[in-house]
């Protein structure tokens, strides 16, 4: 009789443990961020992290009732920190792509951004649109697909000049080796705040960029909870307040704030 009871208990507990691990079950979440993107996520003089992504992460995680432990990552690590289990969430201004979706899942997007173009103030009158980039030299940061999206997707015959990062792009546009830098308008707005940078934001909003949160593959519960938190963040005006706080003076048009259409969790 006892043996049967033990078997029964074992069977019942085995059924209870079938649910996959989720960030919902934790009290403290490891949030992976970059520390080198002005306005979006950067390290202040006093060593604390600050920026739009940081504020969004703090707001959403507190809505889930959890604490944050920050993990600083480099540009290429945004997928591996999730796949090898070092982080629970990635707030690295990632957009959703089919390739990335094969290894991780996406909560959100928490913001819908557009691609924009930064030019020298002198070119303000001649480059007003992505079509005006035909025959112009544009910066291509290796590893990104932004330049390809102009040349292949839009079929605009721009000349692509490779660079290792945006700092080099800034130098090149200053000394005239290139004519334009194009990427997410928020990242451009951040670059424009660097000392000594004098560029003009064209306001050519093309190619929607859906900035999303990376979560571990299969964590449907966690993804759904984050989406609920994002919905509330937009409903109570926090999202508008944060956009205004960080980009209100950047030249980005915030008159219409898009409500992000979620990617879906399964």
């Amino acid at each position, binding site marked *: 009789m006892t043996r049967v009871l033990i078997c029964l208990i074992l069977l019942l507990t085995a*059924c209870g443990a079938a649910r996959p691990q989720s960030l919902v079950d934790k009290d403290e979440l490891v949030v992976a961020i970059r520390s080198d993107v002005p306005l979006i996520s950067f390290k202040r003089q006093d060593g604390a992290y600050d920026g739009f992504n940081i504020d969004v992460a703090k707001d959403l995680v507190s809505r889930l009732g959890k604490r944050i432990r920050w993990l600083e990552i480099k540009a290429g690590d945004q997928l591996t920190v999730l796949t090898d289990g070092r982080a629970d969430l990635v707030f690295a201004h990632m957009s959703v792509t089919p390739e990335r979706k094969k290894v991780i899942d996406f909560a959100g997007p928490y913001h*819908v951004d557009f691609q924009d173009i930064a030019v020298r103030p002198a070119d303000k009158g001649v480059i007003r649109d992505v079509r005006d980039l035909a025959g112009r030299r544009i910066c291509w940061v290796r590893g990104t697909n932004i330049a390809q999206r102009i040349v292949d997707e839009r079929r605009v015959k721009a000349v692509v000049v490779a660079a290792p990062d945006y700092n080099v792009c800034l130098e090149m546009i200053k000394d005239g080796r290139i004519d334009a830098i194009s990427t997410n308008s928020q990242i451009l707005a951040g670059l424009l705040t660097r000392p000594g940078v004098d560029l003009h934001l064209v306001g050519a909003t093309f190619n929607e960029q859906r900035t999303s949160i990376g979560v571990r593959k299969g964590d*449907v519960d966690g993804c759904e909870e984050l989406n609920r938190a994002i919905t509330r963040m937009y*409903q109570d005006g926090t999202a508008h307040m944060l956009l205004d706080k960080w980009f209100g003076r950047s030249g980005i048009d915030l008159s219409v704030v*898009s409500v992000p259409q*979620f990617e*879906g*969790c399964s």
Partner: protein
Amino acid sequence: MTVTATPPVRRKESVSGRVRTLAGLSLLTLALLLGAILAGAASTGSSLRVIGHDAGPQVLATTGLHRQMSEMDALVAETLLLGREYGPQRQADLTGYDQRRLEISESLLKAYRLAMDDPAEQRTVESLIEGLGRYERLAARARLLDAQSGHTAGQPPDDVVAAYQQATDLMHRELLPQAYNLTLETGTIVRRAHDAQRSATSLARTAVIVTGLLALACLLGLQAYLTSRFRRVFAPALVVATVLTAAGLVTGTALLNRQGQALEEAKRRGFDSVLTLSRARAISKSMHADQSRYLLDRFRRDTYEHTFLDKSRTVAAVESTSLPDYQSRLHADFQGLLGGLTGRDRHRLFAVYQRFQQADARMRTMPAEAAITFWDGELTQTYESYDKVLEELVRRHESDFERAIDSGDGALETLWRSIPAGLAAGALLVLAGVWPRLREYR
């Protein structure tokens, strides 16, 4: 028949005590078995109600909302594009627009009812109602400016386009995403009910098997004890009770299984498929609208071509760099929302979808006037035949869903009616079986 040697009193008591204990245990385990079956039936029954009768159908209602709203915006674009010479068709568009508005109100009411205990969802519905009011105002202004300009078919004057841009921006950047998220959120409610049900059913199934085997063991033990003590081969009442218990165990497990399968079927083949196909249908509707907006708004031609490509890739994903590249590379082995289709459905759908994309490619090479005529005629026809196939598929999966829910309901009724009766009879038979033996000790 009778015991040969007269046993001592102590032994007498111990024999009757053992019979009582064994009979009592048998009754207890039978009661537990009944309890396990009823608990299983109750928990699966409540999830069946959520999926089959409350949330499920309402989710399906909210998927309509996205399509109706995007159709409304498409109709506005169409009236602006067709100049004064298309009088009757513009009138038909207006009637269609009013019809959509009516359907949207109904869908919103349904969504609001579903959101009764979810304040965030309620706020989404409220904000949609408020936003639709603003949209109507902007769309009416665009139409008024358009009527005043009296242009012929083709691009309307810039002020009309600017007024329409405001309306369509509101629709695409605020209203449609909210409608889409509403469907996802109600889908979450159904998924969670389904997951809870699945673990409850598997728990109930284990409990039924364990208690059923225990009951059988007790009954057999009682039988064996009576046989050895009272030199009887069979107590007929106990044999029948054992058979009834075994039958209760087998049918209980089988019915719980069947109900679980019915729910699984309803969720996967019916509900999930309807949700995915309806999303694809809504997105396809807005692709057709992107074509008219591409013709209407020369300032944003690039943007509308790009959103058309984006949506094409969502519906049927093929690796490609640009729209012409996508259209030339499109093959039957696509991924994306429609990527889950198999067999004949896939081929049928691919054929009509490809024709739609080919017609689109032709339209984009034509001069403005010809493109509008082509869009209004052949292109819209290819879209409609594609949409019709999608609609048929949605209908079929909807009826799969209803059938599966019905079969789950049927299983539930049998469960409630026959099994408790069988097990109660079993318990009575146990009593009837041991009663004469116990009387021998009076």
